């Protein structure tokens, strides 16, 4: 479904992503791991169009998407969450999801209808399935950090993506929130057969939900494979797990 | 051909030099605006009002001292200092508490100060036109390359570079200037290393106001000093600063030159629409370089 081929992207002289390769098949849950500064977020930003690659190819369903604008890439079926919570903080939980639904249905240029109550059924269903239904009228800036992250996933989900990208979905969460979040990601994958690409620092979580893992070090791909293969790979142990794992 | 000979006739050429000398004043005023915008991040609409105050102060000082060279020199010193003092009060009283506000709020706050200062000037100096006559020594014209150029315009042409060098020295060679530049880039970092940014900002604001006052004092003998002179100037100064690159003093110099030159040339080429040309130049520059000619401190 997604194929990243020897992509290079540099900031000034620094090559943040240097020849990364990645393959995500339909229905897979793939994790990207690597030490801080390995270029994971930059890679995600390249895939979703927030950055343009210097060279290399990014193919989604066989079509080149490298260098397209974020909103165009979203329309092609990739939505995402960000590492730092990125929601409409001054709008309510309901409105957050509602805008995403309206955007997907291409109704954002509609100046004649009343927005109130539009797409309510779907929004409420989504909020129920992520467990935010009872907070639907809360201004989202007032939510707990964990709830905000979940809301962002709900917003990304409402674009009905084929590929969902999650940049550290559990960063900064309390343990029980992390637990809920993992259950949510599992559920999404089971219920909707969603393809998920995510990056995460919590190795327990990675090996828990990912089917395959890609290891990134200094902007390049070290290894791609099943959890077992990656765990056994000595190069990974040296570079990333400090040889102790 | 006739058109060209008209363009290069001695009369129009000296007219051109006179126009150029006026850009000196644009430069002085807009460099002050640029400093305040670049380092303090305040889009100071009241800058034009301070310029107007400078002109009225110069008028009063000259009348108080009864004219002559001494009075004129005194005006050039006292008027900018008076405006700087006003700036000091404004900075300590208001802006020093408000640096973190949104630009829109600061813009409107300075606009409200502009309204207040405008009316205060009306109360103090009244609504009539005022004018200042040059001291006798400065009346008359010099011959430059066979062209007549009024002495005062010659003085202005010389003052411009002097101010530019002075600003360069302050910004690049003094500790204050270096801290100010660093603070423009990263305010928190500078205060984190224990430097009292507050006073650096006060100094910058006061310097900017001084330049506004100086511009006002210098324009005094060349124009009718009147209410409303702030309005026409502030928009030009803003455009110059935008064109040059927000907060870049050299941008202000370059911007003033472009603005002044296109205006002088424009008036030569098409007298009726001459005033339109500098605006056209600003738009042309910004369409291709939306962040201005030189790098901005933002």
């Amino acid at each position, binding site marked *: 479904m997604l194929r990243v081929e020897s992509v290079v992207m540099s900031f000034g002289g620094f090559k943040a992503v240097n020849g990364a390769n990645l393959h995500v098949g339909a229905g897979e849950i793939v994790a990207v791991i690597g030490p801080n500064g390995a270029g994971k977020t930059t890679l995600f930003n390249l895939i979703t169009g927030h950055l343009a690659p210097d060279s290399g190819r990014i193919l989604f369903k066989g079509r080149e998407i490298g260098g397209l604008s974020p909103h165009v890439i979203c329309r092609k079926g990739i939505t995402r969450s960000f590492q730092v919570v990125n929601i409409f903080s001054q709008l309510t939980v309901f*409105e957050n999801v509602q805008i*995403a639904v309206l955007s997907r249905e291409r109704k*954002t240029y509609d100046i004649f209808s009343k*927005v109130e109550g539009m797409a309510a059924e779907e929004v409420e269903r989504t909020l129920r399935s992520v467990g935010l239904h009872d907070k639907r009228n809360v201004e989202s800036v007032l939510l707990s950090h964990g709830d905000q992250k979940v809301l962002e996933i709900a917003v990304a989900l409402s674009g009905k993506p084929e590929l969902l990208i999650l940049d550290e979905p559990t960063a900064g969460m309390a343990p029980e929130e992390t637990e809920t979040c993992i259950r949510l990601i599992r559920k999404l994958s089971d219920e909707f057969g969603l393809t998920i690409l995510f990056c995460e620092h919590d190795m327990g979580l990675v090996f828990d939900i990912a089917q395959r893992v890609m290891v990134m070090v200094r902007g390049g791909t070290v290894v791609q494979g099943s959890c077992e293969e990656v765990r056994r790979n000595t190069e990974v142990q040296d570079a990333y797990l400090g040889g102790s794992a | 051909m006739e058109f060209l000979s008209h363009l290069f006739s001695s009369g129009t050429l000296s007219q051109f030099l006179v126009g150029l000398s006026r850009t000196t004043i644009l430069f002085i005023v807009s460099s002050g605006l640029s400093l305040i915008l670049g380092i303090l991040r305040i889009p100071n609409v009241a800058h034009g009002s301070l310029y107007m105050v400078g002109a009225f102060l110069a008028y009063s000082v000259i009348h108080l001292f009864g004219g002559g060279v001494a009075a004129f020199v005194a005006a050039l010193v006292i008027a900018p200092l008076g405006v700087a003092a006003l700036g000091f009060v404004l900075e300590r009283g208001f802006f020093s508490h408000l640096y973190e506000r949104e*630009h829109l709020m600061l813009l*409107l706050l300075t606009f409200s100060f502009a309204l*207040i200062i405008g009316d205060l000037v*009306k109360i103090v100096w009244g609504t009539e036109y005022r004018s200042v006559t040059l001291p006798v020594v400065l009346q008359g014209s010099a011959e430059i390359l066979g062209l007549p150029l009024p002495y005062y315009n010659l003085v202005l042409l010389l003052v411009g570079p002097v101010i530019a060098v002075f600003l360069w020295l302050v910004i690049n060679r003094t500790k204050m200037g270096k801290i100010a530049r660093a603070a423009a880039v990263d305010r928190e970092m500078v205060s984190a290393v224990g430097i009292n940014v507050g006073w650096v900002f006060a100094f910058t604001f006061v310097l900017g106001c001084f330049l506004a006052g100086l511009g006002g004092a210098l324009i005094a003998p060349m124009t009718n000093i009147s209410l409303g002179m702030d309005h026409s100037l502030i928009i030009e100064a803003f455009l110059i600063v*935008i064109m040059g690159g927000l907060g870049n003093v050299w941008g202000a110099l370059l911007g003033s030159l472009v603005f002044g030159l296109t205006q002088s040339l424009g008036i030569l080429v098409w007298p009726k629409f001459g005033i339109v040309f500098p605006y056209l130049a600003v*738009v042309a520059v910004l369409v291709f370089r939306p962040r201005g000619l030189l790098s901005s401190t933002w």
Partner: protein
Amino acid sequence: MKHRSLVATLAVLGLLCALPPFLPRFYVYIASIVLLTGLLATSLNLAIGYGGLYQFHHTVFYGVGAYGTALMLTRAGAPAPVAMIAGPLAAALLSLVMGVICVRLSKLYFGMLQISLGSLVWVTVYRWYSFTGGDDGIHGVPLPDLIASAKGSYYYTLAVTALSLLAMRRIAGSPFGKTLQGIRDNPVRSEAIGVDVKRHKLAALVIAGFFGGVAGSLFVVVDTSAFPDMMFWTYSLEVLIMCLLGGMYTFWGPFVGSSTLVLLRVFVSVYTQYWGLILGTILSLVIIFLPDGMLGFFARRFRKGEVRGA
């Protein structure tokens, strides 16, 4: 709740309709100015309050709307209905052109570029004596009898303002309006859910410019004139103040703010010539003593307030 707001609207409209017979001619004129200035401020708010666009030179569209209508009536001798729509369309077109140039920038740079473009329009109108009348402007614009009298122009202004406000309120409460609020709140998130941020901003600018132009064409009806000061930069700042004082994040705030300022100015001018001093003092006190800025203050209002329920 629905019923109450409908009743309130009808009551206000009824009151405004009944006003002219009881007012001296001059105050009927002032009432018209209040209405069209309210329309102008509300149109600006669509861009700056809802869209978060730093529309620093909105009165250019007001001026172009007025000149469009006035020139059609005087130079082209066009029928009044054509002239009335030509002004706003010219303003919308200008807004589109300026928007295309400005929209790639954000915040202060957007505002600054808009000031530059707007000033170019202003200075052209100001100097083009043979076409626009230069700094004298255009006076004594001929109007059809129906709207030529003070009362006639008042009722016309009232009708057009009411319809325009209704339309803008509809837009503000539409999916487009909600998307615009989303863009103001978080453009990155908007893009990531597939919203073409630039095109939505552009659309908002054109709508705001159009209604600004409507206000301008109304001014021609009320004052039978158009002049360059209408589109001078400082007037744009004054309209911004109206929005700020009334509350930018509410739909009716700018209308309330502008009415207050226009009326205050009329009454204060009777007693003193120092209107600027009074306005400046009020404004600076408001900005300084509401520590969040009015924006934050009204943001909180707004959440519980009418736009939310719209």
